[in-house]
């Protein structure tokens, strides 16, 4: 599946008369060079599978498309991006927040349904997530009866979040699809920035300029409320070098409040050389720094030697960072991509600490700043010569593909502190075995040399597996002590009190420990809708007869197909599975559950139901007659389980009733009965 970035990159290439270099594209799309290469491979695979000439890469010149390819894309790409492309929930929410924040008009569920071509339920789920996301930044989603939703909050928060989204999702807002700003004004502002750069003899990072220009044009077009600065802040701004120049160039376009705002951002861009813009709240900064260092120690289990040095570094960083967070000032970190790559583990941990800090300070922290945090931690560890590495893990399964992919997802969720090197089949194990710390396998390995580091699990982790893995990886440090402690307590109790008491205490401890590892499983079980939330009225169909089982499968899946919950290839896969493995989806006389796997073209959770008056045979040589076809679309391994469990209860206990249903209401009544 091509994503938005890929499409955007294709549209740039198809509209360009000259070859574009990877650097050009990286700048224009607003992502790293690495992701450009990654996109390039994806696009070429896509082109190849459609028998269209691939993207050409001329050394020294850059990338270009053949004319054939160009004409193929030129026609529909730009305008039809919306129709071709399915936004991810994260992307939708980013766009939704922006549309709310610019507040052109209040928006209802239906507006988003049309904009993204998704279902009402999808939009409702977006709103739920969005609410959670913005509340951290002290913004709230309000509902005005009759008029729809809007976001309420102070201009400072509004703008910092808007700027944060503009800079984090650059590619989504490259094409002015949502009419957020006047493109001409963006160009004008950019020209003025250029003149300011000359006047001050500085140069700003181009991405920052573009984001800022877009932000200012958005402010202007939508007349966003200005930030009113406090007197002392105003004084600092007006005394700065930038203020006079900004005033000179921007007075014709913006009011004095915006002149302050622009000044603030330009000052922010040289913040590491100036001390004018710094938070003075020492106690608060120290509190934050202590929090960061403590969390870092908790998460890495590293005992820092020279903690004071690290604290000082972070203290000076936070002094200026706090102001940046508050106003959403962008702060480019050119090493960001390298840091992410080289200090992967530290970056991940910094990211997590930053998330926790966002909740404390109520402002978003962007990737650039996270990278700076990672630099501080990374540099400090280097100084101490202690290395932070996650245990390296190799996955092994029968064919090295399907199972391990699932397993990988599950492991990454379960264990935060591991690095999965690769997933391989049995034959390739020895190639990697020496380089890894652990081998997690779903098939018994007969390799004596690696016995010590081999962990044998079931492909779908059982609770025993989870428990064991959790103990091995997460409690390596505390695990042993815990066992010893437990033993000592129980022995003492037994000696001084009674055997019974000791036994009871033992049970309590075991239970509490169990709870701790079960907690992980609860997280996994979140958001499982009930049967009546999945099978709604529009998902139930009645039909007198169909000509064969293929038609039955298509008819039954049609509501899901129409809503974009599944792709057509999902139903094709069901049919080809039947060819290969037989009519196994006929799970009981008269009942078929038509389904394939998440990766066969499922976008979200859905179920639909076809009731036939005349039974149809699902097999050519056996009697596999079916009157009720349920199409199940599961986007992952978990989210459908509650609904499916309820459906299963229904079939077990009310088989006759469901087969005798004549109307949608009859069916819904039964469904509701089991949705508890």
């Amino acid at each position, binding site marked *: 599946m091509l994503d938005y970035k890929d499409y955007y990159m294709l549209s740039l290439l198809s509209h360009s008369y000259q070859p574009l270099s990877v650097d050009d594209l990286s700048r224009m799309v607003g992502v790293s060079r690495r992701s450009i290469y990654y996109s390039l491979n994806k696009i070429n695979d896509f082109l190849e599978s459609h028998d269209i000439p691939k993207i050409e890469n001329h050394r020294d010149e850059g990338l270009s498309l053949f004319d054939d390819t160009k004409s193929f894309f030129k026609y529909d790409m730009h305008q039809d991006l919306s129709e071709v492309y399915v936004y991810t929930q994260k992307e939708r929410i980013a766009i939704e927040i922006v549309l709310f924040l610019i507040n052109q008009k209040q928006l209802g569920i239906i507006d988003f349904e049309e904009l993204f071509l998704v279902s009402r339920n999808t939009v409702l789920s977006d709103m739920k997530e969005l609410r959670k996301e913005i509340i951290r930044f002290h913004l709230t989603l309000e509902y005005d009866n009759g008029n729809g939703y809007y976001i309420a909050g102070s201009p400072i928060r509004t703008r910092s979040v808007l700027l944060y989204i503009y800079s984090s999702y650059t590619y989504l807002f490259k094409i002015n699809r949502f009419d957020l700003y006047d493109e001409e004004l963006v160009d004008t502002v950019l020209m003025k920035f250029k003149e300011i750069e000359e006047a001050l003899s500085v140069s700003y990072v181009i991405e920052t300029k573009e984001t800022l220009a877009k932000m200012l044009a958005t402010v202007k077009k939508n007349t966003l409320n200005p930030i009113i600065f406090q007197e002392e802040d105003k004084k600092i701004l007006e005394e700065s070098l930038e203020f006079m120049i900004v005033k000179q160039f921007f007075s014709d376009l913006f009011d004095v409040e915006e002149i302050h705002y622009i000044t603030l951002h330009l000052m922010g861009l040289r913040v590491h050389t100036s001390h004018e813009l710094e938070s003075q709240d020492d106690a608060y900064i120290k509190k934050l720094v202590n929090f960061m260092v403590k969390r870092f120690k908790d998460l890495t289990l590293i005992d820092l030697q020279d903690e004071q040095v690290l604290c000082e570094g972070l203290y000076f960083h936070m002094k200026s960072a706090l102001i940046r967070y508050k106003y959403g000032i962008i702060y480019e970190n050119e090493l960001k991509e390298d840091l992410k790559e080289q200090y992967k583990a530290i970056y991940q941990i910094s990211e997590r600490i930053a998330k926790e800090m966002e909740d404390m300070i109520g402002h978003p922290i962007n990737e650039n700043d996270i990278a700076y945090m990672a630099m501080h931690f990374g540099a400090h560890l280097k100084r101490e010569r202690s290395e932070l590495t996650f245990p390296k893990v190799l996955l092994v*399964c*029968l*064919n090295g593909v*399907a*199972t391990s992919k699932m397993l990988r997802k599950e492991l990454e969720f379960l264990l935060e502190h591991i690095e999965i090197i690769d997933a391989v089949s049995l034959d390739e194990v020895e190639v990697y075995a020496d380089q890894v710390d652990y081998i997690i396998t*779903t*098939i*018994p390995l007969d390799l004596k040399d690696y016995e010590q580091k081999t962990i044998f699990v*079931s*492909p*779908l982790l*059982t*609770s*025993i597996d989870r*428990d064991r893995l959790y103990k091995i990886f997460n409690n390596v440090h505390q695990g042993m002590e815990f066992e010893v402690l437990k033993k000592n307590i129980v022995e003492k109790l037994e000696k001084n009190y009674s055997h019974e008491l000791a036994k009871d205490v033992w049970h309590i401890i075991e239970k509490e420990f169990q709870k701790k590892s079960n907690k992980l499983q609860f997280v996994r079980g979140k958001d499982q809708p009930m049967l009546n939330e999945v099978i709604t009225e529009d998902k139930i169909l009645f039909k007198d007869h169909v000509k064969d089982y293929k038609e039955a499968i298509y008819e039954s899946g049609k509501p899901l197909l129409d809503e974009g919950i599944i792709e057509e290839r999902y139903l094709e896969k069901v049919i080809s*599975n039947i060819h290969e*493995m*037989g*009519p*196994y*989806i*006929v*799970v*009981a*006389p008269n*009942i078929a*559950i038509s*389904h*394939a*796997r*998440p990766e066969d073209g499922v976008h979200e959770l859905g179920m639909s139901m076809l009731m036939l008056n005349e039974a149809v045979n699902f*097999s050519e040589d*056996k009697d*596999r007659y079916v009157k009720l076809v349920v199409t*199940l679309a*599961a986007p992952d*391994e978990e989210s*459908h*389980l509650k609904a*499916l*469990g309820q*459906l*299963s209860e229904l*079939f*077990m206990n009310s*088989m006759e009733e469901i087969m005798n249903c004549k109307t949608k209401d009859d069916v819904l009544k039964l469904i509701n009965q089991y949705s508890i």
Partner: protein
Amino acid sequence: MKKIIAICGSGLGSSFMVEMNIKNTLKELGVAVGLGDMEVDHMDLGSAYPGVADLIVCGKDLEDNVERFGETLVLNNIFDKAELKTKLETVLKEKGVI
């Protein structure tokens, strides 16, 4: 006998239903389920391998595909509790579990 696995084509749908039913049936038969007792799980055909469990439960149209992985219990109707109970009881008695 320690482990029972329900298998279906995709590992998402019917095998999960069967897993639930097996667990309930085991409880009715007085067999403890879970950690250190009888383990019950579900998976897809592609993830299975010989010796994956002591007993594999599947719907009748997967029988030919599943047999090679070990002892198999085949269900005509995966929603029929009586069928499951009778067949499971027989196997468990044979193995001396109950």
